[in-house]
Each structure stands twice: as C-alpha cells, then as structure tokens.
C-alpha cells in the first residue's frame, strides 16, 4: 500500500499512469496516429487489397529488371544481341523461353525490351501529368468561358479513337521512340486535365483557398501549394491508369507495323516478330504477350487499389 502511494507521489500529476493498461494503449495509439502520414495510411490500406499489393511488387520487380538491364545486367546468361546456332529453339533449360530466328535468347530480349516498353509507359504518364495538369489547372482556376472552350476541346479529343489519332500523327512524326512518345502523349493527357479541373472547381470555394486569396498570395502559389496537393490523390490514380494504356498502345502500334520496328526492341516488336511464326513456333509470341499482359494487368490492379486507398469516401467506410 505504501509503495503504491510512493509511486503515485513520484508521478507527475499531468501524466497518465504508465502502469495502467488502458492509458498505455491510448498513448501508443496517439503516437501511432500522429506518426502515420497520408502516405503511410494509403500504403496500409493498399496492403489490405491483395490484388493491388501483389501488383505493386510485380511492377517494382519489372521496373528493377528494366533498370538493371539498362546497366547491362540481365538476369540470364546471355546478351540481348548475342546470336547462336540454336535458332528458333523451343523453351528448354538453357533457353527458358526459347530463342528467336537469329538464335537470340528470348527471355534476355524480353528483359531488354522491358526498358523501352516500361519507360514508354512511364514517360507517357509524365507527359500526361505535365500537360494535363497545366491544362486542367488553367481551365479549373479561371473557369467561365475559357473553361467551357478548353473543356469542349477535351471532349472532342476524348471522343476520337486513340489508335486512329496515333496512327495519323505517326505519319507526321515518324515511327521512332520520340515519335511514338509524342503520339502517346497527344492522346493521354485528357483524363488528367478533366480530373484536375474538376478538383479545382470543387476546391475553389473552400475556405482555405479564400483565406489564401485574402492574405494576398499569388495565383501560382495558390495553385501549386494549396490546390494541387489536394488534387494529388486522383491525379496519381489517373496516372497509374495511363501507364498501362500507353504500354498497350505502343505494343499494338508496333504489332501492326506502325510503331517501333527492329532494331528497336520492345515487347510490342517482339510480339510482332512472334506473330509471323505463330503457326510453327507459338512460344515466340506467347512470352512477350505474357509480359505485356502481366505488366498492364498489374498497373490496372494497382490503379484500382490506389483509387480505393486514396479515396477519402471509402476511407470513412473502412473505419
């Protein structure tokens, strides 16, 4: 009895009793809640969606595979342009995915091709981010007639079939990597623009924006410091969906012979090569297709997952 009294007297009256289970839990929870920023919160929620979580690691794996390959480190025993006498070999232990008509190891070429395919996807998302954000920000911030005109343009651009536009523009800009990126950028910024505009219109009348205006902050500062960070979630989601459509579009263009062509090596050109040998050596189209499919599927699942993880409405529901 006396010892417990002693303990009590030592203790600072403001502090909760460290021996009480309840208070310990509470302070622990408090600390955790403070430490967990929006990124950790989103990550925690993403982890609870199995498809998105698996997709995330698959994407990370593919990106690191591409980066390693850019430094000349392929995960196989061959070089991407190393020929051998074993031409169009079926998959075996020495060539896991077989070889092509020049005896080059297909797996090595797919890994090498991932550099181009994945970077095309990511760069397109980058273009969509920059162009779409600026366009949408202007439309959403200024509103009115300018907004109507700009958005009418987006509507029209949106209703055109992507591939049709890309093929026509491809005539003009050529079929190199830069040309493809230009064509891809041209058809992929509209989603982001719409999103940013919608977010801006919605946020315009929030009190913190009014406060920022009242305190004399510049337009640029309001847009970059107050409006954009609040629109970040949907933008990230939209960009996650831009990557797979760019990968798909590139491979489709290359497949029909209006995209990249050899010596450029992407998953699309590999699949196009394989198509010609479908009757006799189906593995040549099967494996590149498998990689395209896996990458696109992963990005789509990650996008779905991020949408749920970053959407404040579903956040309330899950708690």
């Amino acid at each position, binding site marked *: 009895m006396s010892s417990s009294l002693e303990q009590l007297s030592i203790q600072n009256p403001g502090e909760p009793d460290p021996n009480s289970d309840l208070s310990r839990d509470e302070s622990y929870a408090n600390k955790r809640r403070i430490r967990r920023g929006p990124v950790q919160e989103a990550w925690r929620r993403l982890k609870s969606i199995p*498809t998105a979580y698996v997709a995330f690691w698959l994407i990370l794996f593919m990106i690191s595979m591409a980066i390693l390959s850019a430094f000349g480190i392929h995960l196989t025993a061959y070089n991407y342009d190393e020929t051998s006498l074993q031409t169009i070999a079926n998959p075996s232990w020495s060539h896991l995915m077989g070889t092509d008509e020049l005896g080059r190891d297909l797996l090595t070429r797919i890994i090498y091709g991932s550099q181009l395919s994945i970077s095309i996807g990511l760069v397109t998302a980058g273009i969509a981010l920059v162009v779409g954000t600026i366009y949408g920000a202007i439309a959403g911030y200024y509103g009115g007639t300018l907004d109507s005109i700009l958005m009418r343009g987006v509507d029209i651009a949106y*209703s055109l079939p992507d591939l049709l536009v890309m093929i*026509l523009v491809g005539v003009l800009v050529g079929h190199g990597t830069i040309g493809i990126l230009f064509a891809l950028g041209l058809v992929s910024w509209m989603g982001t623009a719409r999103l940013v505009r919608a977010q801006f219109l919605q946020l315009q009348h929030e009190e913190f924006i009014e406060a920022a205006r009242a305190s004399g902050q510049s337009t640029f500062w309001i847009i970059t410091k107050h409006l954009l960070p609040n629109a970040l979630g949907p933008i990230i989601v939209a960009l996650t969906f831009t990557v797979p459509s760019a990968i798909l579009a590139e491979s489709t263009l290359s497949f*029909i012979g209006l995209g990249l062509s050899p010596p450029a090596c992407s998953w699309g050109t590999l699949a196009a090569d394989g198509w010609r040998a479908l009757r006799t050596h189906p593995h040549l189209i099967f494996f590149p297709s498998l990689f395209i499919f896996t990458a696109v599927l992963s990005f789509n699942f990650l996008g779905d997952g991020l949408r749920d993880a970053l959407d404040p409405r579903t956040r309330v529901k899950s708690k």
Partner: protein
Amino acid sequence: MFGLIARRILWAIPVMFIVASATFLLVRIVPGGPFDEDKSLPPEVLQNIKAKYHLDRPVHEQYFFYMDRLAHGDLGISYKYVHRTVNDILANALPVSIELGFAGLLIAICVGIPLGCLAAVRRATTVDYLCMFLTTAGISVPGFVVGALLIFVFGIWLRILPVALWESPRHVLLPALTLAAGPTAYLARLTRASVLEVMEKDWVRTARSKGLSAQATIIKHVLRNSLMPVVTVLGPLTAILITGSFIVEYMYAIPGMGRFFITAVTNRDYDLIMGTTLVFALLLIIANTLVDLAYTVLDPKVRIEG
C-alpha cells in the same frame, strides 16, 4: 426529335470539314510521298504519275482540288490499288467492317451486361471478385494477344475454324470474338457500377419492402434504370470497336476499313487515308447522335431541345 436529327446533320458538315482539312494537312506536310519507294522509276515517269494524281501542284491547290471533289462526293483514287477509286474500295470495305463491328457488339452486349449484373447482385462474393478479375484481365489484354490465342487454339491446334479471310459465317466467329473481348469487359464493369448505384436507391428498397422478390426487383426496377448509362457509352464503344477493327482485320486478313486504313498509312496512299478517316469520323458522329436520341427516348426527364 426530328429537330435534333436535323441539327446534328447540320453540325456534322463543319465537323467533317475540319476533320478533312486536318487529315489533309497531316498527311501532306510530311516529306516523302506515295511513290518514294519506287526508286527504279525514271524521273519523267515519276513526273507523269505525279501529274496524273495532281501531286505536282502546290499543296494549297491540291487542297482546293480535293475539297471540291469531296463536296461532290468523290473521295479520289487509290495510288496503290491501281484503277480503283476510294469510293469503290470503301463501298466494299464498309459493309464488311460493319458486319464485324455488329457481331462484336452483339457478343459484348450478350456477355458483358449479364456478367456485370451478376457481379453487382453477388457483390463482394467470390462470383463478384471472379467477374472483376476477368474484366480487369479483359481490358488489360491486347487485342492481338486474344487474336493469337484464339487462332492458335481453334485454327492451328483444334483446326475447327478458319483463321483468315471473310467468306462464310464461320469466318466471322473468331474475329468477332477477338473484337468483343475489350468491349465485353468494358460493358461488364460499367453495368456493375451502374447496377450497384441503382440498387442503393430508395425506390428499390421500397419495392423490396413491399414484398417484391429480389429477382423481380432486379429485373423490373434495377435493370431498366441502370441500362441508361450503358446506352450512353455507345459513342466510346464505337471508338473502341474502330480501334479494335485495325488489329482484328490486320490479323485475320479481313478486307475491311481497318485493314485498308493501315495499308493506306503504310503506303502513304493519301486519298485512301483521307477516305477511311472521314468514314470513321462519320461513324462516330452517327453513334453519338444515336446516343442523344436514345437519351430522349429512354429518359423522359431529358429532352434535348431542338
């Protein structure tokens, strides 16, 4: 409603004019022409060929010449398919593509909409997750992969279906399935979202609480109301089908619009590129007009004035 149609037709004229001008500029300002590959041609012959197709004139003269012909409904001559006019090629190719497109659309509607409903009704069950996985896979898989897979299984392995050309109804099956893969997944996802939204509505709860069975509620009250947004995607769906036709017609060697468009671009066959593009634009305009009409017919709340 006739006012609406009339207005849309009037609108279509400037739109088609812009599309024609833009495409014209796009394909003509590039260096290189349709006869570049024929290097063996003597310059005099090349000059004669160019004169025949008016390619030796300045671009603006060519433009006025083309527009004048276009106004009279003449789409020009193909450079590569000798002695065939673009009108002639398109008259043969368009029915093929429309047949293919409708076959694909039919499959997409018959599979996609029930699949979406099923997923929505069995929300958050294995059935739903499976449907969602399948549809995500459906939008993630490139058309050429579906095509290659179908050709391999049914044409090369089982040998039960023809894999090229466009001759009998049996020839339609594989291309139509290939074309339908994307739109099916798209429609299923859309239907699911739409049905889920309608199922939350008060009048659905009322119907249920009045003792109507779950099945009857869904068929009579939910489905009808959730098909509205599904109808409105006919526009984007047409775009998807056009895009799909490029790949499908290329893979199955079908003499349709998509295939001619691709070969025209590869060959720099100017008039044929323009002809196909204009027909695609027209198809899109028609599809979007139909969507607006469907709006007014299906939803009495929406009456587009006109």
